[in-house]
């Protein structure tokens, strides 16, 4: 399935993992914001009108969901770049 095993030096392996880990942390911070912070402030957000929706309601019904979809596609695009940089892309 994955062709030749790229020989990563320990040092390259560490750098690869620290980049992957940083990306994951960024993604999880954004995830935390959209899934848990926004619902916490929904009442105040509801006083703002967005496309005819109360903003807080909109974020829960659609906005956060769209953010999750975009977030995963973004993460995979970035992770593919990191994989290619270190020659460990497996396709």
């Amino acid at each position, binding site marked *: 399935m994955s062709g030749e095993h*790229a020989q990563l030096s320990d040092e390259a392996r560490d750098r*690869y993992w620290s980049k992957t880990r940083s990306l994951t942390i960024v*993604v999880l911070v954004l995830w935390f914001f959209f899934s848990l912070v926004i619902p916490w402030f929904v009442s105040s957000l*509801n006083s703002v009108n967005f496309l005819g929706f109360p903003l807080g309601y909109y974020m829960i019904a659609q906005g956060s969901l769209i953010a999750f979809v975009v977030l995963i596609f973004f993460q995979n695009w970035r992770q593919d770049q990191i*994989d290619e940089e270190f020659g460990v892309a*497996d*396709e």
Partner: protein
Amino acid sequence: MAMIKGNFLDNIGRVYGIYTGGFIAFIILMAILEQMGVGADTIGILFVAFTIAIYALIGWLSRTMEVDAYYVAGRQVPAVYNGMATAADWMSGASFVALAGGIYFGGYGYMAFIVGWTGGYVLVNSLMAPYLRKFGCYTVPDFVGTRYGGNLARFCAVVVLVVASFTYVTAQINATGTIAARALHIPFSYGVWFGLLGILLCSMLGGMRAVTWTQVAQYIVLIIAYLVPVIWMSNAQGFGIIPHFTYGEAATTIAGLETQYGLNPPAEAVPGLSVLTTPHTGPVGDLAEWKFVTLALCMMAGTASLPHILMRYFTTPSVRAARKSVAWSLLFIFLLYFTAPALATLTKLQLLDPSLPTAIIGKSIEEVQNLAWIQNWSSVGFLSVVDQNGDGILQLNEFFMRPDIVVLATPEIAGLPYVISGLVAAGGMAAAMSTADGLLLAIANALSHDLYYKIIDPKADTAVRLIVARVLLVVIGAAAALIASMQLTGILGAVAWAFCFAASGLFFPLALGVWWKRANTPGAIAGMVLGFASGSAYLYYVYTGGTPWMGLDHLRFGIVGMATSLVAMVVVTLLTPAPDEETQRMVDETRVPTGPAILAAKH
């Protein structure tokens, strides 16, 4: 199996394209039959029978006697199709039938399920799927057993998996029984067994390979069946061509109407039916934000720990394909979940807004009782209109309905032809069957691979292993159907419990297995055992009448379980020696996409 190898994969787009076209042609044929005067009952039967026959055919064509094909579909499912299969695996009878109705009656607070069941995929993608795929396991306990070593860890994972998945699968078989009973006009207790037969036809002969290809077919049916009625209704009632972006006014109008009518509890409740008492667009009551966030968190962590979802990502050809297919899964799931609030909002507006012809609130009781859809659903006891204050006018708190009929009744409320109701029944059946198949397979595979082959008889040969797997599938299915036919739990409660069980026992052992090299065997066992035990004990405590602590009721017991699991795992790990060199190297290998899998291709 020439059709599934090479040949089929090369033509996969065309095969499913023809299938989709055929299904649309079938819908049109049914519409024509309806115009020619064929009865509504016949159309309902044809819809359910035709779709199940197709799934069974796919299941038979995908039969196999190879271990790799049976457990992980030969690891050659393309990312997009695995995304569709995961979406069908994921969206259960609860999502399809009960979610919009839950939002209708539960209002804003209920939407924590929507956030939880989509946001969870960010965790799946970030923490789990790519790494478990690299590992090369057949089942989730396979990962636990290899990463932490020893049969005890593997056994604990099997126990959590079986409890969580079994809780979930009884709810799904219950849903197939309900739909089969309604569409085929047979008693519920027969409907359950009929539903089980359909489910087993898909999975028994071909295991994961058969389930994969039927789930793709089921996704196509269920998403058409969900979107078509909403979009049709929106156009027929003048809410816009694509309602999703334009229902903001409707939501605001509902908030206004709620104040005007008043959200009061009924004078006298009708058992089993609900009345609208919660606001549509915002939180209400003590701890409302906290309750929302904790429910969403339980559902998200549960998503990332439920084995029937995680094992879908073992079927892709590569780590990158596994990640890609998580993204596609979420996109396909999103299509349904961002439609559900639109459906709930527009249906509610149609009933409440006096300026619309479909409105019933504020009309005279007699007029409402003569509506055909009110009579249909009242006659089976799913709906009730009672003039409790005796003024002859229907008030908001005099209209009683079972929440899970909102999706099924919407086409009738909007005056759509019956063919749409038949389509919705077929969609609900597809949703419940596909999830039940994934769950049954997860349980049977864990028992046959991890318990029987890895722990009891490691010398068993392939034929015996696959026969054991199939026998277990039938036995577990029958046990689940038996429990479902007793109707012990409601669909939604059982589903939320499954997520909390999985999150309590498996979330941290799985995530830390990849992300914390120091995590060791005693720590993982402590995390699984104490997390699962404390969660279950807390569930027992609240369910038997104990006062919930901080508003954590029986839908949210995963919070207690997860907190215990994390603390137990970290403390015990730090008190015991670090894992050996070999295990640490295994974790290093898991983190890099290339290189050989940790477990051999056929193990």
